[in-house]
């Protein structure tokens, strides 16, 4: 009998536990999410208080030292036909392209370019790399004059001995370009099949030129990609090993030679003693590059570990796209540390926005009034607080740009008043009025598909609360990265759905892919005749008159913003932080279009380093 009671009690406990558990998730799901303000605590200010970087050095550069930088993800690819150029991080050190950004036009020289964004692609600011110069006789043809006297780097690997440091020939260049266009499964054939099929590459060994011809319809792509996005590789290595994907087969003309790579560990490079390049500007003009003896890329996926390593000088520079206020706020607020460091802030050109189907007639978003109503209802300024105030509001289609693209951007003050009003929400009455006018007096239901990291979820919750006030019921559907990417790529979200999307970088502005066309970057399925007119006009000036192209886009922007095709989300300021012993560096991020090989220009002041951190 006693045992029975014991049994009974135990079972009751189990059942209670189960019942409570099954009621559980519902209880925990109730979110309130209201924002309240408290007396005495005010919103944090917006000014970005950063030490400006030092002026270009007037001291003669020294040779020597090891430069260390951290990567957030493993290096997966060593061949840009296997993986995208963007992820072939090592190739920026070991290989070269036909053209590259002109360092002499950067802050170290004339200062007309800042070279901070990875996607900078102005042809008129480039200079020769493996090609000395180029000509464009007409739209559809570009002729490169190949540099003489460049040698492949000598190394002791099998591939290195195979090439044996011989001179680079026109045939090498032709081979590399053709390889990029014809490798099945390669980036070009998959992403730009029209260009890959239509491009014709011919080389002239007597005149040392390479001519690339393509159909006029592919001219914009050609100009954007061929000069500054294709790495030149030695044919015999590719012919022997199939591709360059094995790091041991790395052979290039670049400033550094890859000596070791441990997957998810470290990549080590040493200086190429036979590098052809010299310093074009400054007190070190004429010096043979590179200055540093060795480079190490440490793969540290954990963000706080990276920050700690930087803090004590184990890595010399922090500047990837994750370095925002949330990550390095500690360092930026530490006055003692900041007095020692150099910092530069910028806005990344690829920002997140909320896209919606403006093309479906049954969708409420096909009406401009509804879209404007949504923007009016949202408190976009409050999102800035997520980054402690250090964020920008107007980031679509162009984010606040560096000097090179200054002609594109329309500052907030210059926007027409009705457009400015859209960003000054929340304005519940105006929003409700517009909704009623569009035929939705009681609002409607929307589903938001989002990536379920804290940043996205918090911003989504904030939107949810704001929209509820005008009668729009927002349901948040948080997905993990892979699932969200799938929805984003397949672009099959419905008439009543929002989707977080990101936009293409500033270097592609001439192609206008953020607001026309069939690519995923046109998240809102925009198909607007005004845009098409502007695009046709743009096509006449691409590659010929950069200022005119920027002007065309500049004039289109107020119209696009008034249409409220996407809901922009304030983008945080990003930072480049570096220790002062890294000289001749002024916050650059890439020298041209995804060209991370700018390390050849700077030098390390080893005495200063020893003074500051002891070794």
């Amino acid at each position: 009998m006693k045992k029975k009671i014991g049994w009974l009690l135990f079972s009751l406990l189990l059942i209670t536990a189960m019942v409570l558990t099954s009621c559980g998730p519902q209880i925990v799901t109730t979110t309130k999410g209201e924002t309240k303000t408290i007396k005495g605590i005010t919103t944090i200010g917006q000014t970005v208080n950063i030490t400006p970087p030092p002026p270009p050095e007037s001291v003669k550069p020294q040779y020597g030292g090891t430069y260390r930088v951290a990567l957030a993800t493993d290096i997966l690819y060593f061949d840009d036909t296997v993986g995208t150029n963007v992820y072939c991080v090592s190739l920026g050190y070991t290989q070269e392209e036909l053209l590259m950004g002109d360092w002499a036009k950067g802050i170290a020289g004339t200062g007309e370019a800042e070279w901070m964004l990875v996607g900078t692609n102005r042809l008129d600011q480039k200079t020769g790399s493996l090609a000395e110069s180029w000509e464009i006789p007409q739209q559809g043809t570009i002729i490169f004059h190949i540099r003489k006297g460049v040698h492949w780097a000598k190394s002791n690997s099998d591939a290195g001995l195979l090439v044996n440091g011989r001179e680079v020939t026109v045939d090498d260049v032709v081979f590399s370009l053709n390889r990029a266009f014809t490798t099945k499964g390669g980036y070009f054939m998959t992403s730009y099949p029209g260009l890959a099929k239509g491009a014709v590459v011919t080389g002239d060994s007597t005149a040392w030129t390479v001519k690339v011809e393509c159909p006029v319809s592919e001219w914009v792509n050609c100009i954007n990609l061929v000069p500054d996005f294709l790495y030149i590789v030695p044919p015999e290595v590719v012919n022997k090993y199939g591709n360059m994907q094995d790091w041991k087969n790395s052979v290039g003309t670049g400033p550094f030679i890859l000596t070791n790579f441990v997957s998810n560990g470290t990549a080590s490079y040493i200086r190429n003693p036979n590098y052809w390049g010299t310093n074009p500007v400054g007190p070190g003009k004429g010096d043979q590059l590179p200055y540093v003896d060795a480079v190490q890329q440490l793969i540290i996926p954990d963000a706080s570990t990276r920050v700690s390593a930087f803090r004590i000088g184990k890595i010399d520079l922090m500047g990837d796209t994750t370095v925002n206020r949330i990550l390095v706020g500690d360092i930026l607020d530490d006055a003692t540390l900041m007095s020692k460091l150099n910092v530069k802030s910028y806005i990344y050109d690829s920002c997140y926005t909320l896209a919606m189907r403006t093309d479906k007639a049954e969708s409420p978003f096909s009406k401009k009034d509804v879209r404007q109503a949504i923007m009016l209802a949202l408190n976009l300024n409050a999102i800035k607080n997520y980054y402690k105030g250090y964020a920008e509001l107007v980031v679509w289609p162009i984010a606040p740009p560096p000097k090179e693209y200054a002609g594109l951007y329309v500052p907030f003050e210059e926007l027409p008043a009705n457009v400015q009003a859209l960003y000054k929400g929340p304005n519940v009455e105006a929003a409700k009025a517009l909704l009623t006018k569009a035929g939705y007096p009681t609002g409607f239901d929307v589903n938001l598909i989002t990536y379920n990291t804290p940043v996205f979820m918090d911003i989504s919750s904030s939107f949810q609360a704001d929209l509820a006030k005008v009668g729009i019921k927002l349901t948040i559907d948080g997905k993990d990265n892979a699932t969200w990417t799938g929805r984003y790529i397949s672009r099959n979200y419905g008439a009543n759905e929002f989707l977080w999307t990101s936009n293409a970088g500033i270097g592609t502005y001439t192609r206008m892919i953020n607001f026309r066309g069939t690519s995923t970057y046109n998240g809102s399925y925009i198909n607007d005749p005004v845009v098409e007119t502007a695009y046709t006009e743009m096509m006449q000036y691409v590659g010929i008159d950069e200022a005119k192209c920027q002007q065309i886009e500049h004039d289109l922007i107020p119209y696009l913003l008034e249409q409220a095709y996407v809901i922009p989300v304030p983008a945080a300021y990003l930072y480049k932080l570096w220790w002062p012993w890294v000289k001749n560096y002024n916050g650059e991020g890439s020298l041209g279009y995804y060209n991370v090989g700018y390390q050849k220009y700077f030098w390390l002041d080893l005495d200063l380093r020893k003074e500051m951190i002891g070794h």
Partner: protein
Amino acid sequence: MQAYIIRRFMLIFITLFLVTIIAFLSVRFIPGSLIDLMVADRYRESTISSEEMLASVKEQLGLDVPVWEQYVRWLGAWPQKDGSFSGVLEGDLGKSLWTARITRDEILQRVPISLELGIIAIITALLVAFPIGIYSAIRQDTMGDYLGRSFAILCIAVPGFWLATMTYIYPAKWFNWTPAVIYYPITENFWANLGQFIIPGVLMGMAMSGTTMRMTRTMMLEVLRQDYIRTAWSKGLRERVVVVKHALKNALIPIVTIIGLQLPVLIGGSVIMEQIFVLPGMGRLMLDALSARDYPVVSGVNLVMATVILLANFLVDMTYAWLDPRIRYR
């Protein structure tokens, strides 16, 4: 005895077969396909429509054939699209869909790291757990027992990842020091390597020591209840002799189980420690491959881990059977 060994060995193969099928299939059920991730990667400001890209990528990766055909290809029993054989039977365990690197090489590069981490962790765990467990058993319910057990339980309770993060953040600010961020293989630089592994290893070991201590204590308590201990006691032997000579030796047999149960750690690594302390180990490989839905790598890693675990269990069982004749005749 022979029959027993052979029987157990056969069972391993069956289990292994089951494991490969489960591993192969289960990854494909996770939503969010590899193809979408890859397209997102390759898309890079392209203007062609996503359907075209999806189809072309799918075809390149060999995912446009039915699942059973992919499985047989992965086993290595069927040629790949270009005619070559690659897979389990070839020994290279397939190629990564993302980087085209051979899975076997990746695994071989990572195993020593997880192994070293695991060994340090197990040694720490045993060094901490044994003395405390034994002491708690022989002085049950005394102050020493309470302190010892509290300490061991605290080792489990205090989250390892919390301590690990703190070892990076606070010393950087206070002492201008962080644990190592560059990995040197043990053959290259022994002391740097040891320096990097000792902190995560000890932290892991401390976390494991709690369970080990509890098991040791239970084993010792059980043994101490036996009649022969009472006999030894009544014979007037000193406590040390009773404990060491009689109790400990008999308790050591089940200790083999304890170590056997920790073996998955040696091969599986600890994802959190590897992530925070920048160690390129097996746990990270598994996590990264799963996040990227890299099917061959996930299947390959699973196969390797399963084989090691099954073999380890087999060895443990054999040791048991050898030590305890009663088991052989089941």
